[in-house]
């Protein structure tokens, strides 16, 4: 009986390993808090030369990306004072009077079905000149990615900071329907939620995805064998390795910045503690040893330290310990519930979940001054993850009690929700820059 069941699950799992393209329109982006002082920018609808059925609208994608960053306020299409297609058509004086700092114009040329040429120009209105211009070859499957890449180029030119629009996010969804087993899926999608692909599906929980630093693999926890085990899966070859399956908890895997190790939580000695697993040798080193709960490790960007959640003082608080082990130092003192820490890529900011009563919010702490800022409103916000450029934080939130993905700018000024049409979404984790 049990065997049969397991075999059925295994078959499902094997099927689940293939990347299944999911519906594209299953998503709604909601800007929940706008930012004051965002740079006004006009993204003029791109001229489309030829006929195409591709629904990806390059200029819309770019405008939405820039707005999602919280650093730009794109002018609504209907309020544009002009729609120049070429550089010669731009009336700089007009745009200056309108108070627009930057202008994006461009073209999508349909060469033949599934073959496009996309070009854009970024114009500095005050300089009265083009400051950036590129042309790309694209097909149906690359068009959205190229649109995000254009957003990255514009973002970097204006802010001086590398853009993170053309990256991926991973997350877990669960669908519960009466009378059938729940369906858990590990998914990978563009940062705006489009192009989602199922990496794994299972009738048992999937948890805690973590990106390898080169973006080619995910580590995660799967309960497919009716116990938690940590797997590493290559997203391209779909090869999958089980890396730990000890008695008790196998949880919270997080890749080290050099990609050679996983920090994780094991309870094989009776109690949840932090360990570091060297992937090549399978050598395991215990980092923390305490009767309380130690879990949710996360690496400092230089790989020398690990922050983690511990209940050693009774309630969950955040601690820091050398990645080689040693005695942990407590980092959070405000609030009764601080958990799920992550450090920004510049090493300056800690983000985490702060709970008070029944309300859980995402908070950040300046690691030099210990100044804490509450970034979100709750009530059940969790799993914060930095964009690779540190500008945004993606996290799990709720929308009428449905699990949704949300993002907030690191300064807390701008918020948005990504509402997927089916199932609960949780545990988003932002992938690295594209290599």
């Amino acid at each position, binding site marked *: 009986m049990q065997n049969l069941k397991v075999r059925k699950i295994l078959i499902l799992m094997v099927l689940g390993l293939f990347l299944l393209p999911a519906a594209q329109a299953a998503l709604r982006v909601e800007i929940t808090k706008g930012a004051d002082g965002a740079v006004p920018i006009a993204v003029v609808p791109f001229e489309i030369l030829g006929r195409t059925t591709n629904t990806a609208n390059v200029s819309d994608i770019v405008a939405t990306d820039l707005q999602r960053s919280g650093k730009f306020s794109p002018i609504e299409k209907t309020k544009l004072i002009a729609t120049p297609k070429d550089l010669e058509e731009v009336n700089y004086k007009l745009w200056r009077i309108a108070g627009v700092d930057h202008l994006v114009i461009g073209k999508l040329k349909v060469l033949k079905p599934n073959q496009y040429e996309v070009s854009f120009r970024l114009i500095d209105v005050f300089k009265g000149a083009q400051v950036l211009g590129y042309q790309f070859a694209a097909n149906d499957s690359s068009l959205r990615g190229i649109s995000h890449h254009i957003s990255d180029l514009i973002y970097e030119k204006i802010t001086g900071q590398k853009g993170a629009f053309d990256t991926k996010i991973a997350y877990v969804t669960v669908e519960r329907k009466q009378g059938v087993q729940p369906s858990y899926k590990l998914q990978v999608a563009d940062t705006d939620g489009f192009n989602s692909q199922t990496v794994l599906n299972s009738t048992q929980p999937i948890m805690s995805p973590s990106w390898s630093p080169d973006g080619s693999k995910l580590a995660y926890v799967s309960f497919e064998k009716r116990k938690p085990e940590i797997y590493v899966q290559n997203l391209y070859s779909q090869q999958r390795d089980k890396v730990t399956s000890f008695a008790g908890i196998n949880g919270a895997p997080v890749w080290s910045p050099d990609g050679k190790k996983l920090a994780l939580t094991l309870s094989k000695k*009776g109690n949840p503690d932090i360990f570091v697993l060297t992937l090549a040798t399978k050598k395991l080193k215990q980092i923390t040893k305490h009767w309380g709960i130690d879990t949710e490790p996360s690496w400092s960007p230089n790989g020398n330290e690990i922050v983690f959640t511990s209940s050693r003082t009774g309630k969950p608080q955040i601690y820091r310990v050398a990645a080689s082990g040693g005695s942990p130092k407590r980092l959070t003192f405000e609030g009764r519930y601080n958990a799920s820490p992550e450090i920004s890529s510049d090493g300056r900011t800690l983000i985490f979940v702060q709970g008070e009563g029944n309300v859980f919010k995402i908070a950040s702490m300046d690691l030099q001054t210990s100044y804490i800022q509450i970034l979100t409103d709750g009530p059940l916000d969790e799993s914060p993850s930095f964009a690779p450029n540190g500008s945004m934080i993606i996290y799990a939130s709720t929308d009428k009690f449905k699990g949704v993905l949300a993002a907030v700018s690191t300064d807390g000024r701008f918020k948005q929700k990504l509402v997927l049409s089916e199932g609960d979404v949780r545990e988003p984790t932002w992938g690295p820059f594209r290599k």
Partner: protein
Amino acid sequence: MKLTKIVSALMLAGLLSACSPDNVKDGDAAADDNAQSENKNADGAQTGGLNGDGTAGGTALSGATVSYEKSAINDANNVLAEKVIYFDFDSDQISADFQELIAHHGKYLAANPSMSVRLEGHADERGSREYNVALAHRRAQSVRRLVLFQGVNAEQVSIISYGEEKPVALGHDDEAWRLNRRVELVYEAR
């Protein structure tokens, strides 16, 4: 509410059964829950012997019976029908009421070494997910300690923690959260 009633009924039943000479030892052990070392000595075989005749049952006032016969685990009227232990928020402490219930399960397992139990730990949705896995694991460990206390063979008891991943109540209020903070005892024949 219902549980308190059952438990008090059971305590009465326990007293009754303690009166029979065969169960004196069992009664002593139950009366001295804190004497860990003493109870550790009461190994599975011994405790099994005490209850092996299956006559240790008494009819409780609520209708729940106490029997550690192998089939008792499937008897809806037996005290063992209650197979879920509930917890406070962010706590792995077991309340007095549930200590009684766990003791009954421990005695059953001790009497039936061919049975094993899987303790499935769960948490409510509040707080972070991996912390909840660890918390629910500790809840299951707390239950396991009390089960083993009755002289159960350690191999009969396994633990799995699901954290907040498998709620029984899908609501988002105090009542749903209360129902989800639990350890489920799942029996299997070995």
